[in-house]
């Protein structure tokens, strides 16, 4: 069982309020090392210099969206195996298929309860302690 406190997380969302809400939920689950960025390009640059185990990213962002970030991570030699959970306001089939084809680890549609986020994380990492 992985300790949540040992998992480094990057939260990516263009809305500061959403980032804060996710951060609070993660802290409640026991995560300690939580970083966040307001754009996919900033997040990608940040995790290239300081790797994380888990990226939780919004889909709908201006410029570089969540799919672009997922593609960038999966095609990066060093970051390719980073766990990626996508958040979106839409369950659009095309986006889900695209994300799945690119190797997204899980997918959550907003608005979600904090418990649903925890469940998605645990499906990838196993039960958190």
């Amino acid at each position, binding site marked *: 069982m992985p300790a949540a406190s040992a998992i480094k997380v990057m939260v990516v969302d263009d809305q500061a309020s959403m980032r804060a809400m996710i951060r609070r939920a993660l802290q409640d689950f026991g995560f300690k090392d939580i970083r966040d960025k307001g754009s996919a390009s900033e997040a990608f640059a940040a995790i290239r210099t300081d790797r994380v185990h888990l990226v939780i990213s919004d889909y709908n962002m201006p410029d570089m969206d969540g799919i672009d970030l997922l593609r960038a991570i999966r095609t990066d030699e060093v970051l390719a195996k980073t766990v990626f959970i996508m958040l979106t*306001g839409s369950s659009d089939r095309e986006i889900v298929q695209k994300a799945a084809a690119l190797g997204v680890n*899980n997918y959550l549609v907003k608005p979600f309860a904090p418990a649903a986020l925890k469940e998605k994380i645990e499906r990838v990492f196993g039960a958190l302690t």
Partner: protein
Amino acid sequence: MSALAARRIAIIQGEHAVVREPDAIISTLLGSCIAVCLHDAEARIGGMNHFLLGEPQADQQLRDVDLQRYGVHAMELLINAMMKAGAERSRLRANLYGGANIIAGLGGIGSANAAFAKRFLTTEGITVGQSDTGGTLARKVEFRPYDGKVRCKTVADRPLPPPITPRIPAGCGEIELF
């Protein structure tokens, strides 16, 4: 505000509308709920939402349908719809209405809604222009998205629609990938 408005769009709790037509008017009737009007003066795009309550706490076990009521998501939907229509986030200006404490004994839910909305807009760096919140009376809000003009008046004699279960996106909260 023109009496010859080409199109009136009435929204209720849990809904939002974004328009760029010159004569369209978005309207709503508010009690303790909040309506945020966003406007991009350069693109001449405006939008309004109507939501109830604030952000959920991390330790709350809420059904997804409940979360739709919460402002964080309602605001995200409105902002995203504005940007999709061609607005620039950095140009967005907000007006804020509602949040009345109409029913005594509900712990100032209207005030909590208004406080949430103000905090959200501050956090997101969106300037608030006009703000008419609080009190004990319902409000009718009419917003002309094209030029950003708003008319808000209290209505003591209009019965408010009861709180409703908001519509939520299909598959909300859950998609089984694996």
